């Protein structure tokens, strides 16, 4: 299986916010100089609180939004310099699965049409398309008869399987899974996570697995990147990040996780307060107002994301 690679280089995304007719135009920096790489066969997990820019980043990678600066490369080519044919191919090779399978499936289309729709853009004949649809249904554990039904006839977990089948029908190399199990019950979540893991291994896919639930992200990922207010603050092997976090924010995220049994003592305290407004980000290290270790330097100088010599990248003046 050939290796494919999706690269984000120094990505920045500003969204203009106008707060009134005569007020000055402000920019919200949703994504702030992010470098990221997603390879086939590997899962990169991305965690952070709501509003930290996880979804904005995924939209840049999906060619849904143009970055304000920086480039997205697929197999060495800048996707914003592709011609139409290349973009069509890119759109098939990199597939999303979104959070809410109630809003991501058209209630008035039959499941077979939903799954086949991304393929209308390809050169496939109709019978090939139908073949792909039934293969995709089989891969996610649904039957061929389900293609005739409407989304309303399925439960939330089955709908998410349909959304996964739609992505698979395109025979992607890379899938971007944005909070794709967050709205599911624990029992259904486990089914979907196992299904995704098996698909990745069988088909050699590359995943960007976005979530805010650290245990699920760890279960899926080889490597985890922790995002805070538009920046990656720590990135490294999944187990190392979860067992020995070095950034105080990562540690606070772990402390916020629910215990796996009643005897497990809480580790540290969850972070105080809430995510600051990206309209007016704190000076220096963005985490300093909530950080127990912050001192003078953290309020002045923003730490850069550097290799810490143990195989992870870290942006902190006072790593643990």
């Amino acid at each position, binding site marked *: 299986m050939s290796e494919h690679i999706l690269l984000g280089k120094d990505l920045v995304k500003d969204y203009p916010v106008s707060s009134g007719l005569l007020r000055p135009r402000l920019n919200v920096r949703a994504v702030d100089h992010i470098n990221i790489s997603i390879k086939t066969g590997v899962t990169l997990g991305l965690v952070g609180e709501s509003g930290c820019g996880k979804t904005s980043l995924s939209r840049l990678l999906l060619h849904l939004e143009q970055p304000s600066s920086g480039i997205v490369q697929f197999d060495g080519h800048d996707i914003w310099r592709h011609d139409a044919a290349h973009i069509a191919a890119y759109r098939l090779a990199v597939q999303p699965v979104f959070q809410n399978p109630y809003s991501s499936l058209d209630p008035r289309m039959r499941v077979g049409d939903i799954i086949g729709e991304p393929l209308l853009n390809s050169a496939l004949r109709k019978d090939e398309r139908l073949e792909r649809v039934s293969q995709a249904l089989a891969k996610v554990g649904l039957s061929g008869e389900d293609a005739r039904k409407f989304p309303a006839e399925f439960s*939330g977990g089955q709908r998410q399987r349909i959304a996964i089948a739609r992505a698979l029908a395109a025979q992607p190399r890379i899938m971007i899974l944005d909070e794709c199990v967050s709205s599911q019950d624990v*029992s259904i979540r486990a089914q979907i996570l196992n299904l995704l893991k098996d698909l990745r291994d069988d088909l050699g896919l590359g995943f960007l697995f976005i979530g805010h639930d650290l245990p*699920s992200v760890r279960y899926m990922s080889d490597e985890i990147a922790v995002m805070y207010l538009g920046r990656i603050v720590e990135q490294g092997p999944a187990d190392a990040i979860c067992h020995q976090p070095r950034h105080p924010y990562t540690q606070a995220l772990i402390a916020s996780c629910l215990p796996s049994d009643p005897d497990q003592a809480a580790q540290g305290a969850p972070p105080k307060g*809430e995510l600051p407004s990206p309209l007016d980000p704190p000076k220096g290290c963005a985490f300093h107002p909530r950080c127990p270790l912050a001192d003078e330097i953290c309020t002045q100088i923003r730490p850069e994301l550097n290799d810490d010599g143990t195989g992870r990248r870290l942006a902190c003046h006072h790593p643990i």
Partner: protein
Amino acid sequence: MSNDIVLDVRNLRVSFGPEETRLAPVDDISFELNQGETLGIVGESGSGKSTLGMALMCLAPAAQNARIEGSIKLQGRELMGLSADEMRSIRGHSMAMILQDPMASLNPVRLLGDQVGEVITAHQMISRDSLKSRVLKAFTSVRIASPEQRINAYPHQISGGMRQRIVGAAAIIGQPQVLIADEPTTSLDVTIQAQYLDLLKDLQREMGMAMIFITHDFGVVAKMCDRVAVIYAGQIVETARVRDLFRTPRHWYTAALIACVPKLQGEAKRLAAIEGQPPRLVSRKPDQPTACRFAPRCPAADKVCEQAPPETQLANGAMVRCWHPREAS
């Protein structure tokens, strides 16, 4: 912890639909809740846990011919059969509820202070000044910074975590004896969830109220609850103290639910997912026994599971409803 029973629920059944084919999302549920205790009610979507929560407040589902039967005793007083007015004087006052989605619980065009204060004015005559001071006190107790300003804000002006704390303020301002929380943190981020759960624990300790915590997440149970009732297809399949339940779940469904939660520590083992779906509601007469409802998904199911499983009483007030309970190891 004293063992005074605050809430005693016996043979509670919620049903709706035409008489011949009535469906019962809550089917013969009994439990008691002690003073100062937190009882977790755990189950999957569609297990009837939210319908149960509403029924405890004597609120029947908005469905054709809906009916609540059985007995609910709040500090010895029977709630079933109370008039609508009598029941209204209990809701928000002796028993309060926090629902999942704070945006749906709050009125978007009314000031936060008025919405929280309404809980008081619905039950008693009170001067404006003392009302305001009680509202401010409630805002402070749910850790709202600068409450003087916040009482004059609208729901859209505050964050989701803060909204849920306002809903919490409205729930506790009447100093209820029983607080029912139905998935109160599902719509919140993990960090805000942790803060909110800690807050609820503190409030419970300060006010000495009993809580019923409805959730699908065993992590929430581990953090919050003293005792747990696991509910499947409208019936309690197991009750136990929280430590016993995690150490030795006796029902196969409980064990499966615990096993399918990903863990942060230790080796990342493959999750033991429960295959299949919870069953759809089926109609049955109250006196007509049915097969074990979990049997189609159960690894231990056999012929005898086609008979209604027995309720076995165990040590420490635990109960399991199963023909082949797991070993107590």
